[in-house]
């Protein structure tokens, strides 16, 4: 089997799981009699996996709703509901799915203030959604201080959330099963890091989507599932082979390496379109995005308290967007510059997504930091979930022009 076939095979194995982000999927789970838990965002995935509970992550459902047929109409209907005119479109759609009864009544609801105000608001709305009046609810408060006390504060609440889940669902968490999930998750974490290391090779051996897919599988959809470990191992083997052969992606003559510090390129439809076009037409490789840049500390299983501290750290420090939104602008800028160096990037692109209030407020600090590092930076200012605000071709053109004026197209 040549290596393209291996990558095709790996892609084929996971493409069927895209629908696990859709509202339809969770309704089907519910219709089959499964207990579904809901959360305003991703949290405690290891526990949900160990308890065998499908986890309806409302923001992810909202984001997925912008990528399937009927997105524009759906977004317009959501706008008509007047949740706030400058709200993130992803969260707006999550609210729309909630308020139009398209999410199943969950067995339990967990809400929290990560990563941003919009998601906090979504959580409050879910808590007060009348058809869910009888749903058991639990609210967690994350500290913005990343000190030990702040982590312990959140870890304690996570532990309480598990007791809450047990009571709400009537399912007892099997500690051995949780250990198994965590041990497997740790292996997957290691593999994801190994994969990132391989990606640093010049030329870059793979397109950007693989890290994103690996993250989605390992951290959320199938957290701690051994088949994901196997999938990651095969991905790494195929990538390693390309690195040994000093081979890049077929059909791409790598000339530019850039990173997108935003979840924009996480969106399969839009991100793939722009990244693929930049790669094919300009030889520009998207090296990293901040969903892929996550999950590097193993879960400490030496004690229960240590485990919950690990969960808290993972959630607040090592989950895409939580890290970027909750930490300081200075930490954000440091991350950007360091990762750009590590991945030998020529430039950084920030989409400046209009829904990210906390990121809209740190542009000057990042700009200044990049300027001092001599790293070209482009901040676009688009809605990553609604291409009618700025079309994909305009986004592409802006990035292309940025590369051109930076002198990268002359290489």
């Amino acid at each position, binding site marked *: 089997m040549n290596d393209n076939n291996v990558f095709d095979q790996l892609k084929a194995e996971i493409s069927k799981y895209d629908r696990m982000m859709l509202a339809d999927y969770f309704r089907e789970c519910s219709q089959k009699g499964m207990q579904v838990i809901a959360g305003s965002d991703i949290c405690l995935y290891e526990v949900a996996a160990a308890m065998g509970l499908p986890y309806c992550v409302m923001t992810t459902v909202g984001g997925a709703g912008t990528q399937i047929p009927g997105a524009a109409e759906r977004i317009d209907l959501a706008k008509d509901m*007047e949740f*706030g005119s400058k709200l993130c479109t992803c969260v707006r759609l999550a609210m729309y799915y909630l308020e139009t009864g398209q999410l199943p009544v969950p067995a339990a609801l967990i809400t929290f203030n990560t990563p941003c*105000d919009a998601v*906090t*608001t979504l959580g409050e709305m879910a*808590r007060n959604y009348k058809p869910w009046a009888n749903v058991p609810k639990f609210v967690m*408060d*994350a500290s913005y201080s990343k000190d030990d006390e702040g982590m312990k504060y959140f870890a304690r609440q996570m532990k309480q959330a598990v007791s809450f889940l047990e009571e709400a669902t009537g399912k007892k968490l099997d500690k051995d099963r949780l250990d198994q999930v965590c041990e497997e998750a740790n292996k997957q974490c290691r593999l994801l890091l190994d994969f990132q290391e391989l990606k640093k090779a010049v030329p870059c051996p793979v397109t950007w989507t693989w890290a994103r897919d690996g993250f989605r599988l390992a951290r959320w959809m199938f957290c701690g599932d051994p088949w994901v470990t196997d999938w990651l191992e095969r991905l790494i083997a195929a990538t390693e082979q390309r690195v040994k052969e000093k081979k890049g992606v077929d059909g791409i003559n790598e000339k530019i390496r850039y990173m997108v510090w935003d979840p924009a390129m996480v969106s399969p439809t839009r991100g793939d379109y722009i990244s693929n076009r930049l790669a094919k037409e300009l030889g520009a490789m998207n090296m990293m995005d901040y969903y892929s840049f996550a999950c590097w500390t193993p879960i400490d299983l030496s004690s229960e308290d240590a485990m919950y501290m690990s969960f808290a750290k993972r959630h607040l420090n090592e989950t895409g967007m939580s890290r970027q939104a909750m930490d300081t602008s200075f930490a954000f800028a440091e991350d950007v510059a360091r990762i750009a160096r590590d991945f030998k990037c020529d430039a950084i692109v920030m989409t400046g997504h209009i829904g990210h*209030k906390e990121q*809209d407020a740190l542009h000057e600090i990042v700009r200044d930091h990049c300027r001092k590092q001599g790293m070209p930076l482009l901040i676009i200012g688009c809605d990553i979930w609604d291409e009618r605000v700025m079309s994909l071709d305009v986004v592409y053109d802006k990035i292309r022009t940025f590369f051109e004026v930076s002198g990268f197209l002359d290489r």
Partner: protein
Amino acid sequence: MKSCMESQVFEKLAKIASGIMNPEIEDWKKHGGKVMGYFCPVVPEELIIAAGVLPFRMRATGSTSTSRADVYFTDFNCDFPRHCFNQALLGNYDFLDGIIIPTCCDTIRRLLENWLHAGIKPSFVYQFDHVHASREVMVGRERDQLLKFKKSIEQHFKVEISDQSLQQAISLCNESRRLQQKLYELRKMDSPPITGSETVAVMVASSSMPREQYNKDLRALLDELGAIKSDTKYKARLMIVGSGHDDVFLSGIIEEMGAALVTDNTCYGPRLFVQTVEEGGTDPLLALAKYQVMDTPYCPKMMGAHEKRLQLVLDLARDYRVDGIIGETFLGCDPWGGEVFMLRSELKDAGIPFISYEREFVPSLEGQIKTRVEAFLEMMGKGM
């Protein structure tokens, strides 16, 4: 509704509310006093007062532009903090000796880093990482955060905040709360002696001047108001719900349209005084923590407390015999956007007419808003 008040005390308070710097602060500074700016009522003024420092609640009264702040923020950020930051960049807050920026919302939270990055005076900038959910188990965490905050003030200003001084500050602020409650009580009357716009000015002044003087002035004002026999006619009794507007844009429109603004639930309104901080206990920090987390979770960023917020709105609507409510939020304020959405259906269920609109910090679209208020009055059968 027209004012029937001619009061020198009111004129003084209204002047204080109409700008940033005022004679009270000038006098305080002249006598060597320190002034500490802070955003949002989640920061307990009591701690600042107990340190012998004058608290000044940040606002951007009179600001007309965000041109300098726009280097740091985008149009998608709420423009209230942007206007404040613009004022800071212009040097209009140079009289401050310190500033407290809480983690109350994403845009305000980021002010801290931008403040430091821009090298704006003052050098003492502190982030108050308060609790964001209303649960009894979180009161202890809030107390810990207050203790850190207290130590930081003590260290910077080289003062000791004793339990006794904190108790005194709590009593002082509670006194303001009781007086403000009395002020609002007057608006329950058929013909209130003070208008909504005038009340906004009195409330805004409270966090821009020494508290002892404010209480003295407010007592005097209440005496004057008590003697007024008002027989003002109006079309309807209205209430505003929303974020922290420190101007009289909407109240002015309401009054111009012949209606009375009889109460509100905004960041300068009853949520500041409907509860008092427990006095006389052994742990004043704990009393402040409980007040913030459990008693007054009225900012929609406080999770798990929407029911309490709704109840406050319903209680106010009942007590002040409100005919209709207008929701007013800043563009880009996600927490209030969601809150107003929920209120829309809940107030409908309660049979209370409700409209809402989003606005920029600098009043705009006046004609459009007048039309909406007029239509609202007509919808309630109060148009003529």
